[in-house]
């Protein structure tokens, strides 16, 4: 097997046993990137210089017998909305094309402190607004399983980089499914943490009350390893929660006997591709060998999750993106004319933002404006209260909830991009976890015609360890990490 298909844990073992130098691992990954990147376009920026520098540093530590971190020498891909000091961070937008952050996001500090190697910054939907990675200013990312199809979004670059063997671990961000959707479409593992478990400091905001940075990997254990490193309270994010440190890798293996699994009927209802529904039920019946008990039940308020999510997300986007004024950083409209503040502001944004970002800013401005605030924004916040109550009831009956990650199989590039509502509807099964702040993980449960199908496990707040355990035990029977695309 090629070295770039090894798991992060395996590559770490080879580094620690000095079978491979970190520098050699970086060389192998960069060669792989050169080999496939023209087809996949997973990266906005490849950090060759910085990667070699860090590699030498970690190699030196190992040779000298000094203590190394949990991610010793592992090449990690970082989504391009997560700030990296002295490495440009674009959000895949023209408006930030040349923006170089003067500071690191907390998660970046944490992975570097554990001796990870940042191999590159990954492509995404502009400002994380999208389901396909087609709205990137730097061109779409392609799905490594079928280059004519979308990789999902918005963390499409991170998922595709993993699926194509261009990284061992990746960071994504998930506002309404942006980790889980591309993980599902690209056949990898992705976890959205409980709101507040991971610091958002340095994550360029889209809808800050929903989003979390989370781990992505080709195996569940690797995903748990990265979560162990990035989780934890941070004084710089006032919404982060004080939780005792936890090692998510320990306790992955174990019995699932008597685990109670609920399948919300609304998540497998009309409109969901029958191939996806079949894959989910086939998967759940295979869990019976672990003596898991499952049943379908109804979560009726789920039908209101999508409009509530989009109205709040767009409202927050219109406010968060007001900072892009062309004055302190980012693209600025230039002319010899004597334009005033408002003209420069409006024209910089006209030229700097893409179509989907503009659409969401206008809709968000509308939902927040006088006369519509109560009807849309406040109504949505109240709807969350009702949905949250339904979930709390559900978690009294069930340990975990299971459903499809995406209601459809990966579709063709260009197929839905001109129909925004059709794209929003693809998020129907992922947004509930963001609305109520609970953790959710996706992993491939089946393949159809060579395309991966993801299944989603949701847990009560801070039950990351439980959903990871379900994923880990499932991986033992499904063995999905053995399958890689031919590129």
């Amino acid at each position, binding site marked *: 097997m090629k070295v770039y298909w090894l798991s992060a844990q395996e590559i770490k073992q080879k580094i620690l046993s000095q079978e491979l130098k970190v520098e050699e691992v970086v060389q192998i990954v960069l060669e792989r990137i050169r080999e496939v990147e023209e087809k996949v376009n997973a990266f906005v920026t490849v950090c060759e210089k910085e990667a070699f520098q860090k590699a030498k540093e970690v190699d030196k530590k190992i040779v000298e017998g000094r203590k190394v971190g949990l991610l010793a020498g592992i090449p990690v891909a970082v989504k391009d909305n997560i700030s990296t000091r002295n490495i440009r961070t674009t959000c895949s937008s023209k408006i930030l094309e040349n923006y170089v952050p003067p500071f690191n996001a907390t998660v970046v500090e944490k992975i570097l402190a554990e001796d990870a190697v940042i191999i590159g910054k990954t492509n995404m939907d502009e400002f994380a607004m999208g389901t396909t990675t087609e709205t990137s200013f730097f061109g779409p990312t392609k799905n490594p399983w079928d280059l004519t199809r979308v990789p999902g979004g918005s963390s499409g670059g991170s998922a595709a980089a993993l699926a194509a063997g261009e990284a061992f671990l990746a960071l994504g961000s998930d506002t309404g499914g942006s980790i889980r959707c591309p993980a599902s479409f690209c056949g990898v593992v992705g976890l959205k943490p409980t709101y507040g478990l991971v610091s958002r400091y340095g994550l360029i905001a889209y809808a800050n009350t929903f989003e979390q940075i989370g781990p992505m990997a080709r195996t569940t254990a690797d995903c748990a390893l990265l979560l162990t490193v990035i989780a934890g309270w941070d004084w710089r994010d006032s919404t982060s929660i004080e939780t005792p440190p936890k090692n998510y890798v320990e306790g992955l293996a174990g019995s699932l006997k008597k685990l109670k699994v609920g399948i919300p009927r609304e998540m497998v209802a009309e409109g969901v591709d029958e191939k996806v529904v079949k894959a989910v039920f086939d998967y759940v019946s295979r869990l019976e060998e672990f003596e898991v008990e499952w049943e379908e039940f109804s979560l009726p308020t789920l039908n209101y999750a999508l409009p509530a999510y989009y109205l709040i997300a767009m409202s927050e986007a219109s406010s968060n993106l007001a900072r892009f004024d062309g*004055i*302190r950083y980012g693209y600025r409209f230039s002319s010899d004319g004597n334009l005033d503040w408002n003209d420069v502001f409006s024209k910089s944004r006209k030229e700097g933002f893409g179509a989907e970002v503009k659409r969401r800013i206008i809709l968000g401005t509308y939902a927040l404006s006088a006369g519509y605030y109560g009807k849309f924004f406040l*109504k949505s916040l*109240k709807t969350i209260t009702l949905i949250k109550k339904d979930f709390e009831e559900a978690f009294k009956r069930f340990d975990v909830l299971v459903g499809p990650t995406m209601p459809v199989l990966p579709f063709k590039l260009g197929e839905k991009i001109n129909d925004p509502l059709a794209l929003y509807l693809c998020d129907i099964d992922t947004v509930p976890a963001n609305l109520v702040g609970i953790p959710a993980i996706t992993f491939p449960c089946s393949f159809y015609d060579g395309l991966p199908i993801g299944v989603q496990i949701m847990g009560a707040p801070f039950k990351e360890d439980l959903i990871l355990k379900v994923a880990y035990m499932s991986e033992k029977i499904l063995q999905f990490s053995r399958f890689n695309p031919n590129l």
Partner: protein
Amino acid sequence: MEKREKHISRSQVEHLAWLARLELTEEEKELYTAQLNEILEYFNRLSEINTENVPPTYHVIGKVNVFREDEIQPSLQVEEALKNAPKKRNSFFEAPKIL
């Protein structure tokens, strides 16, 4: 009223774009008016759910106010803060005229 302007009119879209300081082309105004009406038609299903006497949720995990000591921390140096400015003069951001 035309169906395509049932929820939001073209002139409203123009006004919202002005509020958001976001210049739109004529084509964009046409396209967004049509698309936003279609999207709002779907979003209107929220009116079906009864939220009378239901309080709004602001922080899902239930955090309210967060305080810390007001201590001086290291912050960005002027040169670093200005590094990304499209236009600067001495140690200032250069902005277009306001009045």
